[in-house]
């Protein structure tokens, strides 16, 4: 159960950061705390949908198996392998966040230069490595198919969350009216692109 809880926590936090990255670079205001809080909450909530979909598929995998206990053990072993890959990555990010709390321009910039930037670049590879190891070790085609589906969700989450900011789907002035977090990018001062 602790393996499942740890993976759930990681998935939720990862989805929240997907929400953050999807929103970043789209609002040119200076005060954006609420804008980012909402984006992260949105990411975490959509993450629950993805987690629920994955949990449903995995539950069906266990219940439809002729050997449910063995299927559960396979899942547990796969989850542990994923954690072995994902936890050091998450730990490094956590340490960088702790360092970013230091009120120093240099320290904060270094966290981006050494950790946040490179780790964002590596995230898809880490995601594939963890899932790939879990799938390969399970030697179960059905579990492999579910794993690939979950991986696709993980890797497409940021893009999917970013869809709301594109074109006319997003009304920056309405967002500004709610908490003064207007968005500059898609041309609120310029004619809208259709």
């Amino acid at each position, binding site marked *: 159960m602790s393996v499942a809880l740890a993976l759930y926590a990681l998935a939720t936090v990862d989805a929240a950061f997907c929400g953050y990255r999807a929103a*970043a*670079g789209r609002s040119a205001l*200076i005060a954006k705390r609420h804008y980012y809080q909402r984006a992260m909450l949105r990411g975490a909530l959509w993450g629950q949908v993805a987690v629920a979909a994955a949990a449903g598929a995995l539950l069906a995998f266990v219940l439809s198996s002729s050997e449910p206990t063995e299927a559960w053990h396979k899942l547990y072993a796969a989850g542990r392998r994923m954690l072995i890959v994902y936890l050091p990555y998450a730990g490094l990010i956590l340490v960088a966040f702790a360092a970013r709390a230091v009120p120093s*321009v240099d320290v904060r910039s270094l966290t981006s230069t050494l950790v946040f*930037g490179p780790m964002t*670049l590596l995230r898809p590879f880490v995601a594939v490595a963890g899932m790939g190891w879990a799938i390969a070790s399970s030697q179960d085609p059905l579990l492999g198919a579910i794993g690939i589906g979950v991986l696709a969700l993980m890797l497409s989450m940021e893009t999917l969350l970013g869809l709301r900011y594109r074109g006319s789907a997003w009304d920056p002035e309405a967002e500004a009216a709610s908490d003064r977090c*207007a968005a500059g*990018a898609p041309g609120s001062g310029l004619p809208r692109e259709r």
Partner: protein
Amino acid sequence: MRDEDEISDLIVRFDAVTLQRLPVRKHDVLTAFTAAGNERAARIVSAMPERDGVLVPEAVDRLLVRVHCEMQRISEEFQHGHRVAELLRPLLEALRVQGVERPLRVVDVGCGTGFVVRWLAARGGLGADVELIGADYNRALVDEAARLAASEGLAAQFVNANVFTLTEPATVFLTTGVIHHFRGPDLVEFFRQHEQPRAAAFLHFDFQPSVLAPFGSWLFHAVRMREPLARHDGVLSAVRAHTAATLLEAARRGSPGYSTAMYSTRLGFLPIPRSFHTLVGVRPGLRAAFMEKLGQRADRMGPFA
């Protein structure tokens, strides 16, 4: 250092005197990039909308506003507002000690959508005697900067003007990521225009060229930027940024009335170059007061000349 044009250098043109927007023929831009062997830039430009062979100004402006928004995200991540304030506050204190005429007018040259000026207005704590002005040749960017400032109630002005010809002269000139756009004699000419009677100092922030800069710039533009133009120009900016020696020589030739030095080129005592370095120019009479007000950070200042 390469003398290669960025896309944003070629897709907009303005009359230097009237600042009137001039039409840019798409074919000319494509030809320029193809001739320079920059097929990637040509592909990016070829996707831009045209009308009668001319790049559509409104579409170009929308793109540039989006690109500036993405650039702001990186500036925020790398604490650029704090970086500017760290130098500007002691500089303004030194100016007050010297009894310089008020208001102290800080002008951001080529401000784009005005991130630095708006950040300083919101978080800079510079004092009531400081006027913050952003200026840019591109009216669309200036209008967007003004709109953003108004929406947050920030005390900053944005003007579509050549700052060196403003009727209300600047006390401090400021730029971020602008000076590498001036090459050769244009760079010296840029500094020559700083020689105005009321101007007391300038702070020019730009990428610092190093062995690691192109890779670091590529990495951050790959993971943080969405617009292909932003990715292309951002990486090229780091590649063609001026060395400290080039900046100092040009500044000393163009504006000999200032003492100039490079600030914060290395990370502490480590031999690690910073992503950005700053060209600092102050009137000679201001130098001692400025260094005193910098306090411990004075260690980061290179030798003045």
